[in-house]
């Protein structure tokens, strides 16, 4: 836990409403983003994010401070979304860019409109293929490529070794490439 987080943790443990609000408002967008990505659709993302926060509130007394508060919450959120995926055993469609709640990727000033369109179509195709990637490759790749976690962070979040992360990310990339090649 970072030193500057200790007062917030104490206030959360004391049950201060302002602390709960600060905690949620500080991390809500990042938690919502990761659960939406891992769960594979925006439909239930706010419900899952809420569930993650409630779990964190309920477990704050057990937060040992070995990691940053956000890392701890992030791990809870990822596991909440993974549990949801496992329970559903299906993949909802990827929401289109620009749907409610999504921050639209702005056009690159150096791109022509056609180039921007092509880039976005390509990105959408890759993300659609990602939805068809089997677990555990899909979540591992999301944590690395979309969330920008280091290999060490991915290993810590998923509770696997660095070697497993290395091989799993590589295999996920190759499987994703194969899926894109088979697309019409």
């Amino acid at each position: 836990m970072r030193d500057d987080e200790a007062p917030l943790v104490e206030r959360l443990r004391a049950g201060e409403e302002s602390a709960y609000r600060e905690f949620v408002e500080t991390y809500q967008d990042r938690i919502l983003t990761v659960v939406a990505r891992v769960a594979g659709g925006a439909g239930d993302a706010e419900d899952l994010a809420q569930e993650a926060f409630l779990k964190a509130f309920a477990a704050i007394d057990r937060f040992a401070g070995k990691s940053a508060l956000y890392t701890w919450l992030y791990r809870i959120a990822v596991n909440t979304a993974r549990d949801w995926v496992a329970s559903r055993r299906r993949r909802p469609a990827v929401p289109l860019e620009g749907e409610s709640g999504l921050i639209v990727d702005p056009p690159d000033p150096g791109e022509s409109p056609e180039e921007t369109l092509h880039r976005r179509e390509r990105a959408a195709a890759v993300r659609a293929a990602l939805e068809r990637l089997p677990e555990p490759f899909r979540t591992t790749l999301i944590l690395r490529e979309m969330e920008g976690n280091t290999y060490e962070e991915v290993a810590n979040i998923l509770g696997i070794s660095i070697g497993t992360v290395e091989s799993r990310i590589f295999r996920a990339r190759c499987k994703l490439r194969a899926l894109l090649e088979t697309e019409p």
Partner: protein
Amino acid sequence: MTDRTMDDQTCLFVLSLLMDGRDVLPDTQASALAWAEEHPACRAALDELRAQSQALASAPAHRASPGFADRVLAAAGVGAGAPPVEPVLPFVRRLAVAASVALVLTLGFDLSTPSGLHAEDRLEKQRHVVDHFRSTPFASDDIVQGLRARLLDDEAFAPLGGR
């Protein structure tokens, strides 16, 4: 001269690690780069992996809708005076409650229809249904009271009650 133990897949694995800034033994790195230099297909595959990574990294972030924090705090029972909600309200439990209620109502309905049973016998069976439901792990006081009202006191079942 390329390393004889190197192949496209191994080369791609090493280059994938390098792409992510991972440490690779200098000899292995040199072998992979030499292999890629001589094998255009391997280079092309690496370009595709790199493009995939860029496409995924550009995924849009999400933004919570207005009032999200209020809803979370209300669900937590913080400041809103609402009773705390369990972090996980299992879907299975809610489903089981709904199924039990439906079952009991169906039984009650069946018992309420003309079946040749004496009215008092049917009323006794309905009481039994309510008592049985009360013993299940899904029963709460509210639900039991609701069932009792529905099965025993409701106007719709007046003939059974002799009213």
